[in-house]
Structures are given as structure tokens and as C-alpha cells.
């Protein structure tokens, strides 16, 4: 009982600290610096403490402190309650979603069963969808409560886009769920121990469709029509300033991490290293004794998982700084006329293959 409690508290603290303490602040820096490197620039590097600048890592700190001391603004005639509530509604699902994503396998440690996921829900992936659908409300409310035309238009665009892409996203992963026969993310992860059984090889089309939908769901470039600067000032958070504005931003960054986590779990072999099975890892670390070997294997698995997550973050950032923005009708057409039929075709083909060959 006590061990269980310690285990879950440790897991929660770990995920929270790595998400809120590492990814959320560092991604702002990554986005700037990566854009700089891709555009042959230097990027932020002059904020210093004494003589140290450590490649611009002080800039996110400066941004954070400045934002905290910025005036908190609520427009006249706005609904103050909902205006304040909206960023929280956006942020909470972004933080909570990571709780169902397994960041490691299952281990026997000191006679205690350790499962490296905060909540190993039977409906895992559906829980993710449920929370992302709640995040829509944050956007809609932000748009509505600001009492500004730009905000309202941005909110409407965002909600329509998020609703549409949620449908397509759900259909895009049905193929992989059919193959693995479970919704539990930890089981899906465990089934990809063999390199050739990784989701990306089984469901390449599903991977592309899901990735596209996930980026669109997060409203990132090239699907950032809800916050399109050239059309809608800043979209649904036009009237937000200071900390509340940054909360929208942080939820966006955390969703990048979450999407990367889901992609890793479903398609890129979760915590497994290619061609290395769990038994091989354990036998490799045999010198450290049974418990030591387990701990080392666990650490290697966690590191592998986060390396893959970081790869996907990098990929999303590259997409963000490569592609131009779609027009709004193109976004909708892509969803309903391309991704939806393609995912239906994917489902039927997967079903046929499962029925005729694998059975």
C-alpha cells in the first residue's frame, strides 16, 4: 500500500516536473533557437547574468519574469469570469493528458510491480480524446468572452477546426487499435517490442493521417488559422495579456509534448530500442544484480521514450518553420474530403487484411 502510494506520487512528480519544469519553458527557447538555426541566424543569445549567456537560455526566464509583471487586462464589456476561466480550461487538459501515456514498461522491483504510467486506464486513448475535446471549450470561451470581433471569429474557427479534426483523428487511429486489439496505451506500447511491429510499419498511412490531425488539433502552423496574424490579429487570444496569454501558449507547448508522447506510444515503438528486447536489456545489465539491472533497464527505457518524444517535438517545430499557412477552406477541405475518406479506406483495408490473412 505504502509502496503503491510512493510509486504513484513519484510518477506524478516526475511527469509534472518534466512537463512543467522542463518542456514548457524550454520549448519557447527551442522554438526561437530552432527557427534561428534553420534560417541561418543566431537567435536569442544576449541576455546575460554576469558574463554567462549559455546560448540564450536566460531568455525564457526573462520572458517569464516580464510576463508576470505585465498588466493583466480584461476588456471593458467582457465577461470577466469566463475571460479568466478560459486559459485554465485550455491548460488543464494539456497537463492532464500525459497521465495516461506510458513512459516506460512494467518492471518487478524489490518484489513490487512498477508500471510506468500514472493512470493505466482501460480506455487510454479515448481519455486523451475526451480531454482534448474539453480543451475546445477554453478556446471557444476565450473567443466569446473577450467581446471582440477578432476573438469571436478566432474562437469559432478554432472550435470548428478542432471538432472536425477530432473526428478525423479518431478515425485515423482506429486502424492501429484494430491491429493491436486494445485501447490500453501500456499494452500497445508493450506489443511493439519487435522492431518490425512498430505502428509506423504496420500503419504508415494511419501515422501520416494521425500526425496531420494532431498538428491541426493543436492549431499549429500550417493549421494556425484560428490565430492567423494576417487575418485575425491574434485570433481567440487577441484580448489576453500577460500571464493568461502565456497560459494559452504553454498549453500549446504542452500539447506538442503530449502529441509527441502519443505518437511515440502508438507508432514509434514506445520505450523500445530497435532490435533490443527487454530480456536483452536485462541480461546486458546483469552485472548490477537483479534489482540494479531492472533499474538500469528502466532508466534506459525512459530515456529512449523521451528521446523519441524530443524527436517528434523537433519534427513538429521543423514543420512549423517550413510550411506556410493553409487557407481556412483548405483546412476544412483537407479534413473532410481527404483525411476522413483516407482514414475510412485505411480502416477497411486493415479490417480486410486482419480478416483474411492474420486470422
Amino acid at each position, binding site marked *: 500500500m505504502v509502496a503503491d502510494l510512493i510509486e504513484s506520487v513519484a510518477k506524478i512528480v516526475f511527469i509534472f516536473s518534466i512537463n512543467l519544469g522542463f518542456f514548457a519553458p524550454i520549448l519557447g527557447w527551442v522554438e526561437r533557437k530552432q527557427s534561428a538555426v534553420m534560417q541561418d*541566424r543566431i537567435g536569442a*543569445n544576449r*541576455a546575460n547574468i554576469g558574463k554567462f549567456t549559455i546560448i540564450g537560455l536566460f531568455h525564457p526566464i526573462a520572458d517569464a*519574469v516580464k510576463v508576470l509583471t505585465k*498588466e493583466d487586462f480584461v476588456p471593458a464589456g467582457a465577461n470577466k469570469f469566463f475571460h479568466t476561466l478560459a486559459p485554465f480550461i485550455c491548460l488543464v487538459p494539456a497537463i492532464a493528458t500525459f497521465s495516461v501515456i506510458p513512459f516506460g514498461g512494467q518492471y518487478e522491483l524489490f518484489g513490487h510491480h512498477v508500471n510506468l504510467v500514472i493512470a493505466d486506464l482501460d480506455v487510454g486513448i479515448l481519455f486523451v480524446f475526451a480531454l482534448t475535446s474539453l480543451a475546445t471549450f477554453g478556446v471557444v470561451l476565450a473567443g466569446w468572452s473577450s467581446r471582440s470581433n477578432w476573438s469571436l471569429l478566432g474562437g469559432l474557427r478554432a472550435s470548428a477546426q478542432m471538432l472536425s479534426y477530432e473526428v478525423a483523428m479518431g478515425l485515423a487511429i482506429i486502424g492501429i487499435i484494430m491491429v493491436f486489439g486494445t485501447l490500453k496505451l501500456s499494452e500497445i506500447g508493450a506489443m511493439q517490442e519487435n522492431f518490425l511491429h512498430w505502428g509506423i510499419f504496420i500503419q504508415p498511412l494511419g501515422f501520416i493521417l494521425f500526425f496531420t490531425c494532431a498538428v491541426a488539433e493543436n492549431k499549429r502552423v500550417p493549421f494556425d488559422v484560428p490565430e492567423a496574424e494576417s487575418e485575425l490579429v*491574434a485570433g481567440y487570444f487577441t*484580448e*489576453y*495579456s500577460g500571464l493568461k496569454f502565456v497560459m494559452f501558449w504553454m498549453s500549446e507547448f504542452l500539447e506538442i509534448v503530449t502529441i509527441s508522447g502519443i505518437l511515440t506510444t502508438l507508432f514509434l515503438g514506445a520505450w523500445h530500442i530497435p532490435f533490443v528486447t527487454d530480456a536483452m536489456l536485462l541480461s546486458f545489465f546483469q552485472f548490477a544484480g537483479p534489482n540494479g539491472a531492472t533499474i538500469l533497464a528502466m532508466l534506459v527505457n525512459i530515456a529512449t521514450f523521451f528521446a523519441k518524444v524530443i524527436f517528434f517535438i523537433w519534427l513538429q517545430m521543423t514543420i512549423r518553420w517550413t510550411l506556410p499557412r493553409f487557407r481556412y477552406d483548405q483546412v476544412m477541405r483537407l479534413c473532410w474530403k481527404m483525411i476522413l475518406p483516407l482514414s475510412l479506406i485505411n480502416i477497411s483495408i486493415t479490417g480486410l487484411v486482419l480478416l483474411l490473412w492474420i486470422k
Partner: protein
Amino acid sequence: MGSIKGRLGALRRSGQELLDSGEAERLLGGSVLFTKVESVVNWARKYSFFLYPFVTACCGMEFMSVAGPKYDLDRFGAALPRFSPRQADLLMVVGTISHKQAPVLVKVYNQMTEPKWVFAFGVCAVSGGFYDNYATVQGIDTLIPVDVYVPGCPPRPEMVIDGLMKLQEKVAQERWSDWPRGAAPVTDEAKLTEC
């Protein structure tokens, strides 16, 4: 209940008065902790300008050049254009401001949240330049308080960076009592358009 709300309001008003009159500055200014916090905040502010590019004319090209890879304004932490004035810190007035445009500029300035700074980019924004005529505002400092003037037609990227560093020095020496700055001194729209 009403009385509590009224009392809270009175308390807030008196606090505001204390801040406005500079009394709080006198009371707290001497304390070491306060100045430390102030300097930390100023340090953060000077390396984190979110720009609002109010680009109206040819200087915009030079603005792009200074924001582009060769001179890279991002090195100073000032490369994040926010097109919503609520989120911007630094209003970059880039180009000629005609009298027709003056109310828009003032409105954008008033919409910005505190703390806010203004950067006059190029001679047209600084003084009207050689548009010494009835249609052009003779320097945006007739409308809104300006922090840094960068001359040039258009200014070289180095001049802009010079100006930004001047602004950073200025921000580093600011006190709490400098804020809030409030609305622009000229708010009467009829007055803005007639002259």
C-alpha cells in the same frame, strides 16, 4: 456585504493614490530587497521585448532587414512580433504617420498593456522628416510619449540596434513609480485630425 466591497474599493483607491503620489516609492525605495526585485524585473524586461510593428512606409523594408538573418534582432530578445497590442511591449512606429493615421496610432498605444515603450523608427516617425507639410504628423512625440528616437531614412540596421540598446539601458534604470504611464496625452480625436 456592500460595505465590505466599498471598503475594499476605498483601500485599493488609497493604495493607488499612494503609488501615484510617489509616496510608496519614498517608503520602499530605500529598502535593499525592493531595489533588488526592481533590478531583476528590469533585467527581464529589457531582454524580452514583444514588438508591435506599426509599419506604414518604406522603413518597413529596413525593419525586415534588421529582423532578418543578417542583423537578427532576436539576439536581443526582441524578435517576437505580437500583432495584438495587448501582448506587445514595444510599439515600433516604422514610417510616416499622416494625420489621418494619428488616431489609429494613439488608439493602438492606448490599447497596449503596461509596461509599454515606444520606438520612433526613421526620420518620418521622429520628426516628420522632409514631409514638412500639412498632412504629416511632425514627429510622433506630439501624440504619444516616445522612448527612443532612431534617425535615418531609413536607418541602418546598426542604428536600430543602437536604439534598442539605448532603450535597454533606459529600461534598466526605470523605477516602479514610472508605471503605469496611462493613456496618451492626446485623446481628443477631433484635435488629432484637425491640425
